C-alpha cells in the first residue's frame, strides 16, 4: 500500500516539472511586453534597459528558467508587476476563498447529483427517472451566469433573503460567510450536479445488472443493503474519475461566478492579472491551478485503491 502511494507520488514529479516548463514558456511566447507596460507611456529606453536588467530578461532562456524554478521551489513566486506585492501572498490571500466556494459547490453537487443518479437508476424508465433527467439536463444547459443573475433577482432583490454580493471571511462571522457563499455555491454546484447525476446513473445501471448484485439479492438482503453496500461502492470508480475532471470545470466556473457575486477570490485575481498583463501573477495562478489539478488526480488514484481492492494487488 505504502509502495503504491510512494510510486504515484514519484510519477507526479516529472509531471510537475513539465507543467513548470509550460508555464514558463507560455509567458515567453505571449504577445505583449510587460516591460513596455511597466515603463509607462514615454517608453524611456534607459528605464526599459534598467527594468530588463532588474528582471534578468537579458539572460538566456534556460538560465532564466532555472533561476525561476529555484525561486518557485523556495516558495517565491515573484512580485506582482502591477501591485508590487509578492505573488505568493496574493494567492495565499485569495485561494482559501475560492477553495471554500469550490468545496461548497462540490458538496452541493454531490448531495444532489449522486442520490438523484441512484434513484433514477433504480427507477429506470419510470416517470421519476424522466423527471430527474429533465431537471439534470436543464441544470446542464442553463448557463451559470444566467442562473446567478436570476437567483440574485429572485432571492436577494425580490425576497431579500440573502445578500446579492460581497464576501465575509468565515473567521470573522461564520453565519454571514455561509449566507454570502450559499448562492454562488449553489449556482456553481447545480451545473455539476447534472453531470454527476448522469454518470452516477449510468454507472449504477451497469452495476445493478452485474452478477454479484444478483447474488446479493439471492442472499435475501433487503434492497437498501443491495444498493448501498453492494452496488454503490462499485459504481464509485467512474464517479471519482469524473470528480477530478469536474475540479477543472469548477475553477473555470468559479472565475465567472466570482465576477457575478463580486467575491474576491482566485477567479477575480486571474481576470485582473490577465487584463493588466501581470505575468508573475498569471504564472503563479496557473502554476497553482496545475499543481492543484495534479494533486486532485493523485487523490483520485489513491481513492481508487480504497474503493477497488484489486488495485492493491495489481501494483
Amino acid at each position, binding site marked *: 500500500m505504502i509502495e503504491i502511494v510512494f510510486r504515484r507520488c514519484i510519477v507526479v514529479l516529472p509531471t510537475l516539472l513539465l507543467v513548470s516548463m509550460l508555464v514558463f514558456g507560455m509567458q515567453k511566447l505571449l504577445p505583449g511586453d510587460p516591460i513596455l507596460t511597466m515603463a509607462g507611456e514615454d517608453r524611456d529606453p534607459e528605464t526599459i534597459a534598467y527594468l530588463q536588467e532588474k528582471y534578468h530578461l537579458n539572460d538566456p532562456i534556460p538560465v532564466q528558467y532555472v533561476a525561476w524554478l529555484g525561486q518557485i521551489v523556495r516558495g517565491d513566486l515573484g512580485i506582482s508587476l502591477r501591485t508590487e506585492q509578492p505573488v505568493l501572498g496574493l494567492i495565499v490571500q485569495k485561494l482559501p476563498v475560492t477553495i471554500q466556494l469550490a468545496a461548497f459547490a462540490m458538496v452541493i453537487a454531490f448531495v444532489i447529483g449522486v442520490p438523484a443518479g441512484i434513484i433514477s437508476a433504480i427507477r429506470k424508465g419510470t416517470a421519476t427517472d424522466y423527471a430527474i433527467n429533465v431537471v439534470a439536463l436543464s441544470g446542464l444547459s442553463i448557463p451559470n451566469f444566467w442562473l446567478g443573475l436570476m437567483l440574485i433577482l429572485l432571492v436577494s432583490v425580490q425576497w431579500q433573503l440573502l445578500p446579492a454580493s460581497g464576501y465575509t471571511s468565515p473567521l470573522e462571522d461564520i453565519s454571514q460567510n455561509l449566507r454570502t457563499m450559499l448562492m454562488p455555491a449553489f449556482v456553481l454546484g447545480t451545473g455539476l450536479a447534472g453531470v454527476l447525476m448522469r454518470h452516477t446513473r449510468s454507472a449504477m445501471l451497469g452495476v445493478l445488472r452485474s452478477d454479484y448484485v444478483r*447474488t446479493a439479492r439471492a442472499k435475501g438482503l433487503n434492497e437498501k*443493503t443491495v444498493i448501498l453496500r453492494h452496488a454503490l461502492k462499485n459504481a464509485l470508480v467512474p464517479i471519482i474519475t469524473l470528480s477530478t475532471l469536474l475540479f477543472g470545470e469548477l475553477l473555470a466556473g468559479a472565475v465567472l461566478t466570482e465576477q457575478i457575486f463580486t467575491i474576491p477570490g482566485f477567479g477575480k485575481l486571474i481576470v485582473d492579472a490577465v487584463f493588466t498583463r501581470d505575468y508573475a501573477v498569471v504564472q503563479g495562478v496557473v502554476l497553482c491551478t496545475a499543481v492543484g489539478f495534479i494533486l486532485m488526480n493523485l487523490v483520485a488514484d489513491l481513492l481508487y485503491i480504497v474503493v477497488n481492492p484489486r488495485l492493491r494487488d495489481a501494483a
Partner: protein
Amino acid sequence: MTPPILSVTRLRTSFHNDGIWTPVVRDISFDVAPKTTVAIVGESGSGKSMTALSIMRLLPGGNSKVEGRIALAGRSLLDLPEKEMRSVRGNEIAMIFQEPMTSLNPSLTIGFQIVEALICHRNMSRAEAEAEVIRLLERVRIPSAKARFNDYPHRLSGGMRQRVMIAMALACKPKLLIADEPTTALDVTIQAQILELIRDLQEEEGMAVLFITHDMGVVAEIADRTIVMLRGDLVESGDTADIFNNPQHVYTRSLLSAVPKLGSMTGKARPLRFPVVDQKTGIAAEPPAGFDTISIARPILEVKNLTKYFDIRKGVLRGLAGRVHAVENISFSIHRGETLALVGESGCGKSTTGRSIVRLTEPTSGSIQLAGEDILNTGKSSFRDTRKRMQMIFQDPYASLNPRMRIGESIAEPMIAHATETPKRARERVGELLKSVGLSAEIYDRYPHEFSGGQRQRICIARALSLGPELIVADEAVSALDVSIKAQVINLMLDLQERLKLAFLFISHDMAVVERISHRVAVMYLGEIVEIGSRASVFGNPQHPYTKRLLSAVPIPDPGLRVSKKRLVNDELKSPIRALDYQVPVRPFKQVGPNHMVQEWGAEWA
C-alpha cells in the same frame, strides 16, 4: 410418498417486449422431492435459467411476469409479499450461479459476503457469524480458511470462488439449493471436484438440489431425475437412467446422440462424424466412416523447442520479478490432412502455442516451419504470404466478427487485403465459401447480429478458408456452442478436412470432442507437452498421471457409469509462474507405443 419440497405447477414466465408478452417458459410442471437432485437440461434459450430465476422471484420487475404456482413445502411463493420472499431467498432456497468470476462482489471480502447472509437470516452477532463462516469455508474444503476470510475475491481462482459461493448458499442450511450451471465455467478437473462437493454436502445436509445444466455428462453424474427443456417447453421428464436409456422425445434423442461420449471411439482408427438424427423419426443415421486424409509426405507444420515466456515486473522501478513460462520447450508436427489436438486446462499454454504458430505473439525461442519454410525468421512482407497458408478460428463467434461489417465483407476482406482476388471475383468466392460451410450465398449483405452462434462460427470458418489455407488453428472453436450445434460444426470441419486436405491444430479442453475429431493428441500441462501420441493410444492407454487425471475427471453421459465415486485429488491447478533463476528441469520422453511418447514425471505425481 413424501410430499415434495418444491412443487412447480404450470409455470409460465413471460417478458414484455414491444407491447406484447412473449413467454420464455411455457406451462411447465415438476416436483423436487426432499434430498433428491433434479436436473433441468437444455440448450441456450430453452428457459432453464429463467425457470430458476422465476422460482427465486429474481426476474426484473416491470417487464416480466410469472404465472402458475410455485410451492415450497406447501407454501405458495408467488403469493408472498416481497418482504417474506426475502426471508425465503438465501434462507430456505439458496442459489449458486454459473460465473464464479463475476458472482462475488469484488469490493467486499469473501468472509464478509457470507457473514452478511448469516446476520440477515439468523440474527447472529458479527463474532458468531465470523466463527460460523470459517467453519463453512472449511466444509467446502478451502485450504487455510481462516487466512482466506479477509481475502477479496480476485485473489481466488474460479474453483475456489465457486466454493465460496457454495459456502454462502449453504450458510443458512437451505431446504433447496438451485445450482445454475455451477461448473460450466470451470476446468474439467475442478468441475469434478465441485460436483463431488455438492453431492457430499447434499448427503450431509439432506437438502434437495435443482441442478441446471446443458451438459448431459454432468446430468448423468449427479441427477436422480431429469427434465429436458426446449425453447420454453418441458419436452420430457423422468428418472435419469430412463431418460438416458430410453429417451422418448425426438429432441432428447438428438441431444443425446450429439453428446460426445468419452470412450465411444475405442476401436476406431480415424475421426468420426457425429450421427445425424432425423428430426421427424428421431432415428440416428450411422455416420459415414472417416476417410484416410493424412498424407505421409513432409509435415505441413513442424514446431521445434517452442518456448514463450512472459515477463512479470514488480516494484517501484518495475524490475523483472519473474516469468510466466507459458510454453516450455515443446515440439510437435502436423501432416497435411491431419488433426492434432492440443488439450489441457486453463493456463496450460495451449492457446499461447496456437497464437505463436500464426505469430500473433512472438515466441521467445524455438523454430516453426511451415512446409519446410522457417516462418519465425522471415521478414514482414514474406511473412504476409505465409499467413495466407495458415488461418485461425477463435472461441467466441460473437466477439470475432466485426458487428459493423456485413458478413460477406468480413469473409472477402482477407482476399482483398492479400490481393488474391479482385473485389468482384471475391464476392463470387464468398458465395462459394458460404455454400461450402452450409450457409446460403444470399446472406452476403447481412450483419453478424442476425445470426446464431453456430451460424457465426460457420461464417468464421468460411473466412478462415477464404485464402485457401493448408493449416487452420482452431482455438476452442466449438467450446462456446450448444451440444447439437457443436456436433454440426465438428461434422463440417471433418467434411472440409476430407475435401480440402486441411490440417487442423485443434486446441480444446473438451476431451470428449477431442476424442472424436483428432488423429493425434498432445496433452499440455504447465506449458509442457507431457504426453503425445495417436488418439487411440493416448485415450486407450494413457501413461502420464496428468492425462489419467484429466480423463477420469470427464463426466460420462451414462448414469450407469458414475465416475467420481472414486475420491478425487483436491488440487488447485498449478501456475507456471517461475522465479528468474528457475532452472527448467530436463525431463526426457520415453517411447510407449509406435506413435506414443510420454514425458517422465517427477516425484510430485507419486
